[in-house]
């Protein structure tokens, strides 16, 4: 889809506003702490993805920001204004839901115009704005279709256009891609990012799919049990997780027995520098990424279990003589070189890694 990106359509929101969620707590009837003192500050125009397993409180956080849920304590400040007690319909939030949120009795255009009508904009302005927004999401030709006449991906585009049409202070995306199939998902994901950069609205995106979060966001917040475990840029989150939970949740991680000394963790005859927050001296479990392990010649310390192509690269699964299962990322050429049963030598590449107590 190629839109005239330079001329920002219909004078969309300028630079976004800052969002401060402070010490949000939300306890459901039954004692479940969905939010347990969540603090999250978003810079103007920033795109933050909240990532976590189901039940970690990420959706609750987003709904508190939208005003669809009341926090038991804590505050929601948007653009310097305290919105904690402001009802949803006065908050100016554009929200895209998981699915089925389009009004079924209205066409795509009428859906997009709905928020503008509520803002008492005149007909011509509304029509112009709706056309611009549908154009932005690439659905100009489907403007007169009803939800049931559109695919899931198209429906979500219309929902995005509807949310953006009101020039919201903040754009809220509640797992907008989870109901779509894989191909549409990546396509729409990239488009959401493009549009967000174009309009510059501060955006909170909730997802349980780590790949999605890493691909679109400026910063990714990993949530666990109602709190923010780590908030960092995607690359940093991947290479320098602060906890076992984050390391496990983001990307693939090998758990390898190691010995922590003063100079780092000793494993397979090599030394691995440690990330801050690692366990102290003594026996530990080292969390090593598949690409941070190298297969080389020399005295064997592991046996190949299987090897397979994964498209751009390959992987070899091995069992070390210590009994650890280790996945190694290799080039395609290397895949055929390792047959099940082969004896190989594993060596750490030397990337910094997290050591945790065994």
């Amino acid at each position, binding site marked *: 889809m190629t839109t005239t990106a330079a001329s920002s359509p219909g004078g969309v929101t300028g630079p976004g506003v800052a969002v401060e969620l402070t010490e949000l707590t939300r306890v459901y009837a039954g004692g479940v702490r969905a939010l347990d003192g969540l603090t999250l500050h978003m810079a103007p125009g920033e795109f933050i993805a909240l990532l976590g397993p189901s039940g970690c409180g990420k959706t609750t956080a987003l709904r508190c920001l939208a*005003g*669809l*849920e*009341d*926090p038991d304590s804590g505050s929601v400040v948007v653009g310097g204004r305290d919105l*904690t*007690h402001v*009802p949803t319909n006065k908050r100016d939030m554009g929200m895209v839901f998981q699915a089925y949120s389009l009004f079924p009795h209205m066409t795509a255009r009428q859906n997009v115009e709905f928020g503008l009508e509520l803002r008492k904009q005149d007909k011509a302005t509304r029509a112009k704005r709706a056309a611009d927004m549908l154009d932005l999401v690439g659905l100009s030709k489907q403007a007169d279709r009803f939800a049931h006449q559109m695919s899931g991906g198209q429906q979500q585009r219309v929902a995005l256009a509807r949310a953006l049409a009101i020039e919201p202070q903040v754009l809220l995306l509640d797992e907008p891609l989870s109901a779509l199939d894989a191909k549409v998902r990546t396509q729409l994901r990239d488009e959401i990012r493009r549009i967000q950069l174009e309009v510059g609205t501060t955006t909170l995106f909730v997802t349980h799919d780590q790949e999605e979060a890493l691909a679109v966001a400026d910063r990714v917040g990993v949530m666990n049990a109602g709190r923010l475990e780590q908030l960092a840029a995607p690359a940093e989150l991947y290479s320098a997780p602060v906890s076992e939970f984050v390391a496990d949740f983001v990307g693939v991680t090998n758990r390898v027995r190691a010995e922590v000394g003063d100079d780092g963790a000793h494993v397979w005859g090599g030394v691995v520098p440690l990330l801050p927050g690692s366990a102290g001296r003594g026996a530990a479990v080292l969390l090593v990424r598949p690409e941070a392990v190298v297969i080389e010649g020399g005295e064997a310390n592991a046996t190949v279990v299987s090897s397979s192509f994964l498209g751009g690269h390959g992987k070899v699964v091995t069992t070390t003589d210590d009994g650890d299962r280790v996945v190694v990322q290799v080039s395609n050429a290397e895949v055929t070189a390792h047959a099940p049963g082969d004896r190989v030598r594993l060596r750490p590449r030397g990337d910094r890694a997290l050591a945790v107590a065994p």
Partner: protein
Amino acid sequence: MAQRAALRRKQTTFRWVVVGLVMAFFALPMVAAFEFTIRARGAEGGYDAKTWQTLLDFGTLAESYPDLAKGIVASLLLAVVTVVIMLVLLVPTMTWVRLRLPGMSRLVEFICLLPLTVPAIVLVVGLTPVYAWVIYLLSGATVWLSFAYVILVLPYAYRALDAGLRAIDVKTLSEAARSLGASWFTVMWRVVLPNLRTAVLSASFLSVALVLGEFTIANLFAYKNLQVAMYLLGKSDSKISVAVGLAALAFAFIILFAMSFVGSRRERKS
């Protein structure tokens, strides 16, 4: 802060007020009718449970109100026979249509829903010549009313079974069974029916409730089922007839209430 909570509270209040008012509206005549049945006979007033004692003791009931007892028996028999015919007629047909003749599904559905458009009273008019033949060929026994009752329950049973069939993939199931060497009968009995248990159950329950409540056809053809017996009794002994009516309503309620639990145990994805 608590605008969400306020909305929920408002909804809860609204719910209890509306449900309470409507249920009270429904309950009023029932309560009054119940009060009527426990009034003591005689001038001095007071209450007793004589009517209900008579009703609960089938022996006495059969003695003092032979027609009513016969009506109850007849209605129960009608219910059973109707359910059997309905199941034998509908389950294989609907399964078969799904398996082999999807093109016929529209026609079968049309026929099954047609009784919604033909009021029972109209059906009676049209059935007169048909029943002349039934009486001639079989007998004038009340149980043959089942033939007409199957038609009455057709739309409801069809919908219940259709929902059940939608929830399972009959085609794949029976293909699997056939490939393992099952005969069509085995497919039906061992594969399709067990998977339709809930739907069959709810279709049967609905049919039973409808048959026990049927009045129009039986009355106009001068057969005595439960409702007709009750109606006739109402002219001579209103207490016992009102009590039978209440008992019938309560019985139907218990059937439907129990059914609501059966149905939800295997909720299908929507």
